[in-house]
């Protein structure tokens, strides 16, 4: 026990006063020579024990009241563990928050900040009072419970600290403290302590006006007992650091056909520029083999942010690993940036021509134009290998074809839709993840398409209206006949090529005489290109039908649908519409690839759009494979892969197994993994399958900013936060002992004082002799 007003504790000796008075009184008495002794002796014999006991009780109560009052004034505290003598165990519950974010890998001398933090964590844990329980939480941008509840096994806790890994994640100190408070809130302990061991990165702490943090800190401060917060600073004041903040491919669709450029953003933090920074571009194939450097540069001086362009060419299609790395510095973990890239090699496309007779007569059918656009060189010439390999067939010849041999299927003005074809396309797109492109034309019956491809198969992005978009027959002098594409909002990869002002005029060239009106339910839309900035209808074109508006009472559910309008006509009607369905994609062109509907197939834009549409749907089954630390890896497989054990290898060589689970629709299976603590490449493999699924995980950019808060700054930012600052570079135990005081028990002592006084008054009154 310790005392906050120790000098007052001496007044407890005054408890001896009643005893002294009693003893003195025992000496001060009258002596009476008494004759009627027999009666007195008989009386004493009857009452002596009772009277003695009463005397003792009253004296004890008086002494106790004085003692309790004096002790209460001295404000005693019970140190954690101090009540172990009377059987109370686990007095202190502590949570150690170990910052294992990326910045803790900063190395000064022979030791990283994280190694120092672990040493301090062990020191703190081993210095906890006997009977204490300790929990361990690893704090980065998400708190990870290592020991989720206070454990009395100190050796185990120390061992877990030793095994704790450094992650590549960001820092969320508020999240860590919230987790610690959640653990301590229900812990039965006299004293509660939170030890935060961190480098105190400024962006790891919440802002001063963060409402959630204010609420949390108020809740903690109001708790009884309030946990003590010890902030152990293991930072070193260093801010100089070079990091690679981003890595992007210049082209969204990377093919083996041409060189591809990569833009890396190199960032020199700190006050002084970095000199002689080497930047290397490394690539690796989709297997687990080593990466190789394919390009490099040396930057003489990097002051702040600088972009670097590095170029390479892929010779094989499939998944590739791409990384940019700078030279080693004190914090190597942010010197690399990773990219998981799907490279498109040869894409086989099957064109099902709905008017094969027309095609056979010279160069005029839809399939002729499409084949010319997609495969401009002769397929048979070995030295001229086309990226896109096209085959044309009719419905009759479809029996000889196997759809899954092709990456994409194009329906060109198909009038009939045999049930077998519809079912086959449904499996081909949804389950197998391939692509479908639909060009409309004169043969198309809207009702059939709506019934079979929209209602039954769920492939068509929207319903075809009976009402057509048609241009006026007569055009005035100097005015172009027909209507064209809208040239605004060209963000979709299919049309992004035309976003540049040099290429945009090519998109404006085609003239359409007619097109189908596609009705898309608002709830199906992912996003709709906005109307503002759309060009006015071309002169001579009749006012086209307006774009379908959402039904009354419904609002477009942004982000909840699977349909996107890729491009619009000048009248804002959907021209190219994309639908993601299952693992695959469908692109619908609202007009025709035939000359009968306009001059589109004769324009240069037709070539680029056709190729882009093929590239878009051909890579449909590839999920987004580049993400940040602690993002979820999601990979989908066919339904028959449900139950398969998928092995996940992390960048540091560790592995785990996850079972593929059937999705809700039952058409696919899926694996998810959130344990992406490390930056680098994660590889997913299935037994019996050759394919290796590559995911690139990058650290958060903010972690490279090493500016830290010192004690004064922390107190200035959070003036109401009660914490004890500990220097992690010095011995901690002495300071902790000084600041650690047990629970104050003066209210209990004061209550006991009152109780003793009340009892003494009551008993003295009750036992007082009445007049005989």
């Amino acid at each position: 026990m310790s005392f906050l007003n120790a000098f007052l504790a001496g007044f407890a000796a005054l408890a001896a006063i009643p005893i002294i008075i009693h003893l003195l009184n025992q000496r001060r008495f009258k002596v009476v020579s008494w004759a009627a002794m027999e009666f007195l002796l008989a009386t004493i014999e009857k009452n002596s024990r009772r009277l003695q006991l009463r005397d003792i009780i009253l004296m004890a109560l008086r002494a106790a009241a004085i003692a309790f009052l004096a002790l209460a004034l001295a404000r005693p505290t019970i140190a954690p563990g101090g009540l172990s003598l009377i059987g109370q165990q686990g007095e202190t519950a502590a949570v150690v928050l170990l910052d294992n974010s990326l910045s803790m890998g900063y190395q000064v001398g022979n030791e990283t900040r994280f190694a120092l933090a672990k040493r301090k964590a062990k020191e703190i844990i081993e210095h906890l009072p006997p009977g204490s329980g300790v929990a361990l939480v690893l704090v980065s941008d998400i708190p990870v419970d290592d020991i989720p509840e206070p454990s009395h096994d100190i050796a185990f806790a120390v061992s877990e600290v030793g095994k704790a890994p450094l992650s590549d994640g960001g820092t969320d100190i508020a999240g860590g403290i919230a987790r610690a408070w959640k653990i301590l809130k229900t812990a039965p302990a006299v004293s509660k302590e939170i030890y935060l061991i961190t480098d105190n990165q400024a962006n790891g702490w919440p802002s001063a006006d963060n409402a959630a943090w204010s609420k949390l800190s108020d809740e903690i401060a109001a708790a009884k007992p309030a946990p003590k917060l010890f902030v152990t600073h293991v930072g070193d004041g260093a801010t100089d650091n070079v990091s690679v903040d981003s890595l992007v491919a210049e082209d969204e669709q990377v093919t083996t056909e041409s060189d591809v450029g990569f833009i890396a953003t190199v960032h020199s933090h700190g006050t002084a520029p970095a000199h002689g920074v080497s930047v290397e571009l490394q690539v690796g194939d989709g297997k687990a083999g080593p990466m190789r450097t394919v390009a490099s540069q040396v930057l003489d001086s990097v002051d702040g942010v600088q972009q670097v362009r590095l170029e390479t060419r892929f010779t094989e299609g499939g998944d590739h690993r791409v990384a940019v790395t700078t030279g080693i510095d004190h914090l190597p973990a942010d010197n690399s940036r990773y990219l998981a890239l799907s490279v498109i090699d040869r894409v086989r496309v099957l064109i099902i021509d709905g008017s094969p007779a027309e095609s056979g007569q010279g160069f005029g059918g839809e399939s002729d134009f499409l084949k010319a656009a997609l495969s401009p060189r002769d397929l048979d010439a070995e030295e001229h290998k086309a990226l896109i390999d096209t085959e044309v067939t009719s419905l009759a010849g479809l029996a000889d074809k196997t759809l899954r041999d092709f990456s994409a299927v194009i329906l060109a003005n198909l009038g009939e839709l045999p049930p077998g074809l519809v079912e086959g396309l449904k499996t081909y797109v949804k389950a197998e993840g391939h692509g479908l492109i639909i060009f409309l034309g004169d043969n198309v019956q809207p009702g059939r398409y709506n019934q079979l491809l929209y209602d039954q198969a769920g492939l068509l992005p929207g319903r075809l209206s009976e009402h057509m978009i048609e241009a006026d027959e007569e055009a005035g002098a100097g005015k172009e006949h027909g209507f064209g594409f809208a040239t605004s909002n060209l963000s979709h990869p299919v049309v992004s090529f035309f976003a540049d002002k040099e290429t945009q005029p090519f998109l404006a060239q085609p003239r359409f005489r007619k097109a189908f009106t596609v009705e898309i339910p608002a709830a199906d839309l992912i996003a709709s290109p906005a109307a503002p900035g759309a060009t006015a209808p071309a002169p001579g074109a009749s006012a086209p039908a307006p774009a379908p508006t959402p039904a009354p009472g419904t609002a477009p559910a942004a982000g909840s649908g699977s349909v996107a309008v890729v491009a619009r006509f000048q009248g804002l009607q959907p021209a190219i519409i994309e639908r993601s369905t299952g693992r695959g994609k469908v692109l619908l062109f609202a007009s025709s690839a035939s000359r009968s509907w306009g001059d589109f197939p004769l324009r240069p834009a037709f070539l680029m759009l056709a190729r882009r549409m093929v590239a878009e749907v051909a890579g449909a089954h590839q999920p987004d494979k580049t993400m940040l630390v602690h993002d979820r890896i999601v990979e989908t497989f066919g339904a028959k892969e449900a139950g398969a054990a998928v092995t996940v290898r992390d960048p540091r060589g560790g592995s785990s197994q996850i079972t593929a689970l059937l999705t809700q629709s039952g058409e696919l299976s899926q694996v998810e993994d959130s344990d992406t603590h490390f930056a680098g490449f994660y590889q997913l493999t299935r037994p019996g399958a050759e394919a290796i699924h590559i995911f690139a995980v990058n650290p958060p950019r903010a972690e490279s900013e090493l500016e830290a808060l010192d004690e004064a700054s922390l107190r200035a930012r959070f003036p109401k936060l009660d914490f004890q600052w500990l220097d992690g570079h010095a011995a901690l135990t002495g300071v902790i002992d000084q600041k650690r005081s047990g629970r104050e028990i003066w209210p209990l002592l004061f209550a006991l004082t009152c109780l003793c006084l009340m009892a003494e008054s009551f008993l003295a009154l009750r036992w007082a002799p009445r007049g005989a």
Partner: protein
Amino acid sequence: MAKTYLDPKILAKISRLDLKAKYVVEGFISGMHKSPYKGFSVEFAQHRGYVAGDDLKHLDWRVYAKNERLYIKQYEAETNLVTTILMDASSSMAYTSPNAKGASAKLEYAKLVVASLSYLVLGQSDAVAVGVFDQEIKDFVPRSTRKVHINRICATLAKIEPQNKTGVGAVMHAIAERVKRRGIIVVVSDLFDTLEDVLSGIQHLRHDGHEVVLLHLLDRDELTFPFEGLVQFKGLEIANQVLCHPRMVKKTYLEELHKFLTAVKGACTRNGVDYVQISTDTPVDIALSAYLTSRERMMLSGGRGAGR
């Protein structure tokens, strides 16, 4: 407080016991304007015819009223009853109240009572013997009717110091053996003896035909236990001491005392013994006159007497 016939200051100034006794007796006689009765040891025996010169105060007016005849009451005194007065001189009689100023020990009070009674009896020309006892009879003044006998009695009493335990019962047995002739036995004591022994002695005396008068002398403190604070009581007869807060034991003590007094009184009543409880804060004259007056009333109404 009963009116005293004597001025206590005057009484206190008289040191000689015989003079004190005289003062007491004559004081209450004069104060009452008549003798309480014809001699202490007198009781009615018979009538005789009036002869000239007889004191008219012994005339039995009732008889005269009835028969118009004059008869004189003849008392036992005339038959020469002997009064033996036994005084307790044990250590317990040495108790003096520490609270009352000028208080005297019970023994001194007892001596005055004995001397006064002796004076009264001798004044009636009756014989009186006085015995002093503690565990046994320590001193005995044989009976005499001579008026100067009071001097011997007082001289004997004056030199008595309290000592030893009380043995009232044994003494009464001894007196019963000693005094063969029926008479009046007066015991002046605090009776701090075993109750059974006291009763046994009384019964022995009564069995022998004596009239027994028990003057139970107790100090006011013994009757009221008025002590405060912390007191160490040291036994006068028993070698015990008790340290206590008297208030804490007062109630129980008084209950014990009351039990004892009730038992004694009841035993006396059953055995035809005159029991008089006298507190030492009562002036001697008041105490004696009160008793003697009640005794006379009893006698005149045909009350109990020796041999009845």
